[in-house]
């Protein structure tokens, strides 16, 4: 029997570099420049020894098509005979010189399923690397395995989603309005969006449990924000979208751009909402465009109260809109500080300033997850987490006013930090124990990595932490967080999350959760309620933050009332279809 080839062709030790470059479609195949070329870009991804798929240490592409019931065989090779990494789809030399050759090469890539597989692999890895960079540690997927499976052509269906149960991402394809087949795996935003679901699920697994509309909406919003901000790390693409001129025609001139192209509305239209969106344009009923409507939502503090915005995707758009508007405001502010040449701006500087703001916000958005309670997340708590994440790294906000701008923009969309547990500027309060904390019985070294040790610490100090012990407590994670402190020194902290789960009968709701039982709920009704918190230990092993959603809390009333009305008080989340249904509904508009 012929054994499957699992070893790569590399015979020598892998080269020392940390990254390699791979070709991707930068936005989607719908972005076409004036010279007819498409927005391809080479991106850096973590270097590794890839075997066919491509399959690496965190991603396994399995190009199986359930509609056609065939596997598109992976034929691309990712290293040369010397074991050096190669990009099998890099533009050949002649494509650099000749426009015709370039267009031909681009067209060939779009017809090659192995390139599609590479595109999905590279964007997933790039998104993973971005999370790991922001958090200063390895980030696990939302399931026990190490490799996220990716099906770039899973089925003929206008849908793409993450399934925890199947440990994978599924990308559909469909005939577009123009007759051409649309591949969702070629859309940068869709791949980055789905990858973010898988990553957020790994960081906060309880965010997929049934809860208030904010929780489901948060998953969508963060996925959108990551997808939208990621593109700014490709300056050549952003620059070209703002001013469509092939770089090679510059001849050393400074490219300039008119100020009217740099207003908040113009930037929204060009760089954020107007990009590509082949999926949107080609979707049979044109509703895919709704995917990007969020950024056009004008600030309105009543939005979240409107019935339309109770629906999770619409609700998520409000959070994404607040983030993107804050981004544009901050970018615009930096542009204002740039000099002009006869009234026009230096395009490269404009793009660079956008990249800086996007990079900072993206890091904040990801780091903020560490400061979010592990259950029943709401927009308000996320804002406090966002502000805290930034305040920890940049205590002085007076230069660029990131935090002030975010707080102000979020308020304009009706999102304010929680009224309790926060400083006046919205940053979480430092931990102030009501009774003394006992550190002496815990082993400092074990506390950095051992769930049982952290559990012991929590159990011993449950009084000081305000945990009433009625729920079952489980320590979800104990993770190191490494970053540069404001003084430039390396700061090592430990982030631990614990979750309290209470299985109750209706009769116990008031006693345990401190809220009234929803009208009509029988005393015998089974109810599952969650509490939990994140404890950040500083470099001395002392508690710096304890950010908790307690079991006994007024928020339980809203959650219970909603679940009771939906008949889902004790129904577990559907770990396969949770995002499948959500995303199809969204694409349907």
């Amino acid at each position: 029997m012929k054994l499957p080839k699992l070893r790569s062709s590399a015979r020598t030790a892998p080269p020392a570099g940390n990254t390699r470059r791979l070709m991707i479609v930068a936005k989607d195949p719908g972005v076409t420049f004036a010279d007819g070329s498409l927005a391809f870009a080479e991106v850096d991804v973590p270097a590794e020894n890839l075997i066919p798929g491509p399959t690496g240490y965190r991603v396994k592409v399995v190009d199986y098509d359930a509609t056609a019931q065939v596997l598109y065989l992976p034929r691309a090779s990712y290293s040369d005979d010397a074991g050096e990494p190669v990009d099998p789809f890099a533009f050949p030399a002649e494509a650099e010189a000749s426009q015709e050759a370039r267009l031909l090469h681009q067209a060939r890539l779009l017809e090659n399923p192995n390139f599609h597989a590479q595109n999905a692999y590279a964007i997933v890895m790039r998104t993973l690397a971005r999370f790991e960079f922001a958090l200063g540690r390895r980030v696990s997927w939302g399931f026990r395995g190490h490799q996220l499976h990716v099906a770039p052509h899973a089925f003929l269906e206008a849908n793409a989603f993450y399934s925890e149960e199947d440990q994978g991402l599924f990308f559909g394809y469909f005939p577009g309005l123009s007759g051409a087949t649309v591949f969702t795996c070629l859309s940068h935003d869709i791949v980055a969006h789905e990858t973010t679901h898988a990553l957020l699920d790994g960081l906060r697994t309880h965010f997929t449990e049934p809860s208030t509309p904010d929780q489901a909406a948060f998953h969508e919003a963060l996925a959108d924000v990551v997808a939208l901000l990621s593109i700014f790390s490709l300056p050549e693409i952003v620059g070209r979208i703002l001013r469509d001129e092939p770089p090679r025609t510059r001849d050393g001139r400074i490219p300039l751009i008119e100020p009217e192209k740099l207003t908040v509305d113009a930037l929204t239209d060009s760089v954020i909402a107007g990009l590509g969106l082949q999926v949107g344009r080609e979707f049979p009923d044109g509703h895919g465009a709704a995917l990007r409507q969020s950024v056009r939502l004008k600030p309105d503090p009543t939005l979240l109260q409107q019935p339309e915005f109770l629906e999770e995707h619409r609700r998520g758009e409000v959070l994404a809109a607040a983030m993107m508007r804050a981004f544009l405001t901050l970018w615009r502010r930096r542009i204002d500080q740039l000099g002009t040449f006869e009234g026009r701006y230096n395009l490269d500087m404009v793009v660079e300033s956008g990249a800086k703001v996007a990079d900072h916000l993206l890091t904040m958005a990801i780091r903020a997850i560490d400061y979010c309670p592990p259950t029943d997340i709401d927009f308000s708590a996320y804002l406090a987490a966002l502000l805290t994440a930034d305040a920890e790294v940049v205590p002085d906000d007076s230069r660029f006013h990131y935090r002030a701008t975010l707080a102000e923009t979020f308020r304009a969309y009706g999102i304010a930090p929680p009224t309790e547990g926060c400083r006046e500027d919205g940053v979480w309060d430092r931990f102030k124990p009501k009774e003394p904390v006992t550190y002496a019985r815990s082993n400092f070294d074990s506390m950095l990595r051992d769930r049982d040790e952290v559990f012991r610490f929590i159990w011993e100090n449950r009084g000081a932490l305000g945990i009433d012990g009625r729920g079952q407590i489980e320590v979800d994670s104990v993770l190191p967080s490494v970053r540069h402190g404001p003084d430039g020194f390396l700061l090592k902290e430990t982030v631990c999350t614990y979750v309290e789960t209470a299985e109750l009968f209706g009769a116990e709701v008031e006693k345990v959760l401190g809220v009234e039982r929803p009208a009509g709920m029988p005393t015998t009704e089974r109810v599952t309620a969650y509490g939990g918190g994140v404890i950040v230990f500083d470099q001395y092993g002392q508690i710096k933050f304890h950010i908790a959603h307690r079991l006994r809390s007024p928020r339980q009333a809203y959650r219970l009332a909603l679940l009771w009305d939906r008949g889902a008080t004790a129904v577990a989340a559907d770990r396969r279809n949770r995002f499948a249904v959500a995303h199809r509904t969204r694409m349907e508009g």
Partner: protein
Amino acid sequence: MALAPTKVTLFSYQVGFGDCFLLRFHYPDRDRHALIDFGSTGKPKHAEKDHMAKVARDIAARCGGRLEVVVATHRHADHISGFATDPDGDGPGDIIAGLAIDYVVQPWTEAPDAAKDSIGPEISSPQAFTSRRMALAAMHETSRHALAMLDDGSLHRVPKAIREELEFIGRDNLSNLSAVENLMRLGRRRFYAWHGMDLPLHRVLPGVKTHVLGPPTLRQTDTIRKQRSEDEDEFWHLAPLRLSGARAAVAEGEALFPGHPTEPGNRLAAQWRWFANRVEQVQAEQVLSLVRALDKQMNNTSLILLFEVGGKSLLFPGDAQIENWRYALQSPMAEKLTAVDLYKVGHHGSLNATPRSLWARFAKRGPSTKKGRLTTVMSTMPGKHGKEERGTEVPRATLLRALETDSELHSTHRAPEGQLFQEVTLKLGG
């Protein structure tokens, strides 16, 4: 003194998974009858082949050859299949057609044309109406394609449970042209009703006031949803195309990437097999969720009728689910629900058809000692629809418990085998 019924008897027919209710209004001069739904998608155990014809004959005998009112709440097979005729003229629908029928009531979505006169639904535009009708037709098409995928082997490696559910819901949503056409011919007058319509059934059922709580019209729905229904319709127009496109691609052997080497699904190397299998299951669940979604849409076209007669209120909501109920529950008519004496349990006891806020409104529910206690009537068959582990089983266990504890429940699934119907009597004027 005006003519009014003195008593109401409800015959709840054993049709397995389906609905068939004959309401008898007893008047001093003669009895008058209303038939509410007549369909089944899962015959009762040990039922004979001509079970539905047997039911039809019993209805004919019981109403003495005359039905004042026929109501078809919506076009699902488990509510209308009994109206289907046979080429040789002895189908259950032929027996019903042989009766003298005065009025036929259906939801506005079944109107043959966008009515231009005052009895037409208050729709946004004739185009919107046409669009909705096309969407309903497309839903049948989608079901047909989904069932064909079961037949052509596209889903043969998928777990049995998924295939069975797909088949069950798919069949319920297939177009039953014969029944639909028969319903279009039946009766002296036909009404296509919507929320708030003044339905003049009192002309043939004196002393009975009928309120139409649902379905809402497109415009009414828009006022609570702010979502354009036409967009939703358009999705359904295209849904069958997507499935048929997928099937055609398979049937014609059209390659997505011509010339690229492939490996067939049944001969995959070990490293691909686990996930490839997952992709197949996920695809099948996609089709299933599409079919589930259209099933729900169709349920939400259900008529919700409330009869007020001799101081009693009888509620017949067909299979209306939460989206249909939502409009009724926030309307002034919702107040009328407090006084309901008899409730036909919506959608065979499913999770979403008896919203908690509806159940909470029934003031007459309570323990068996309660005077004038609520009566509930359910026609259902366990093990046909939904999954217990997902909390979607029909009838839903938690609802069943509430019905048993807080009302006088009559359910066909508890009836002795072989019994053709259950009889429930309400005395009036008390």
